[in-house]
């Protein structure tokens, strides 16, 4: 049951991501990536290796169907997921998440969830832009793009989280 729901969620996220990023052109200063929400709200008891494999497959699928360089999203999402539990440990107290399955908006509260989300998305986007330009030489030119994308994507993800999962989960 859990497995199928995960799979359906995965397909939905990838589908929305592809529609948003590939079919709508937002210009060079913004890239849409909302699939990190799927990875960030994996159950807390998931082991890190399986989480990384999830991230890799998600990233690769998104890459394959959208116009990005193949492998770049998988690199960024694996990087993000690798530090995911540490970031989660930053925003919530020890033992806080023991009874919770999903680190979502309802469970964490708005402030902690947005902090968790913001840091993770920032890490993801930084990695993304660094791999894209492959080095720190274009870092200054990439910075506005990263900042705008982090803001827009965080906003979008919080909207989705609030509208879809906040009320209907369980």
């Amino acid at each position, binding site marked *: 049951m859990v497995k199928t729901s995960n799979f359906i969620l995965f397909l939905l996220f990838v589908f929305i991501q592809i529609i948003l990023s590939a079919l709508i052109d937002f210009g060079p200063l913004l890239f849409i990536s909302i699939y990190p929400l799927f990875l960030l709200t994996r159950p807390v008891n998931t082991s890190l290796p399986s989480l990384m494999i999830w991230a890799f497959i998600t990233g690769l699928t998104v890459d394959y169907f959208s116009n990005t360089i193949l492998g770049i999203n998988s690199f960024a999402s694996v990087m993000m997921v690798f530090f995911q539990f540490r970031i989660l440990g930053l925003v919530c107290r020890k033992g806080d998440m023991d009874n919770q399955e999903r680190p979502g908006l309802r469970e964490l509260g708005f402030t902690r969830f947005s902090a968790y989300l913001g840091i993770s998305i920032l890490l993801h986007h930084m990695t993304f832009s660094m791999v894209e330009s*492959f080095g720190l030489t274009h870092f200054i030119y990439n910075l506005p793009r990263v900042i705008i994308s982090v803001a827009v994507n965080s906003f979008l993800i919080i909207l989705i989280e609030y509208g879809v999962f906040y009320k209907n989960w369980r």
Partner: protein
Amino acid sequence: MWGKSPFIRALTTLLLFLALQGFSLIIISRESLFQSVRIGGVVMHLKTGVSGFTSDINYYFGLGDVNDMLRAENLKLLRELELYKKISPHSDSLLKSGEVTPDFSYIPAKVVANSTNKLHNYIILNKGRKNGVEKDMGVISPRGVVGVVTSVSDHFSYVISFLNINQSVSAKITPSMAFGPLIWEGRRTDYATLIEIPYHINFMVGDTVYTSGFSTLFPPDLPLGTVRKSEVTKGSHHNIQVKLFQDFSTLHYVNIVVNNNKEELDLIQGRTNGKDK
């Protein structure tokens, strides 16, 4: 058992992370030209660095063979040169008779022990009586005079180094060919003093000093060093400070000089001395 130890778990996680990231990078480099060029550049840099390092190591460990080869070749050339020197004045007759023996021949040797920090320095070489080394043979290197053999065992020979305040070498100064003894004053290992050069001899700083060939120990015209500065002593002679070509602290391979005419020379000298006395 698997996954029980936190260390192994962390390690597998890290390995998986690296593997996934590496796989992503490979895909990226296959997909995009820009990234592949950059990655190729990094890989090439690493490769050249590593291969340069290993070739340096190989070169270092091959130095012994290279040295042996160069030494053998050098010896061959020196022998040939002595032959040419011998036959050049009267080439026809001797060349046909084929009975040319060079004035000097050489025995290559390796330095076993060496000292430079005393007033009476000595060197021990790995060739001895069984290799044909005898007492009172000169020892040279391509960069100058090294010393004189003073005692010989079966496999080793004991050499009084040129860096010995009792030692002197007969030397001449170009272009005037004035000669005098070159001695070491015991202060610096890279300088020696050429004394008893008459006052009227002209020379310049930078002129080369050679062995004179007036002793039976060393072949003539072996470069020893260059003139660095001079002073006049007692109003009649120059004392010339000579910068030696030979660096005694890095001495490894030398040639022992065998004078093929030594017996004859000693004989005639002894006869004259006997007549004098």
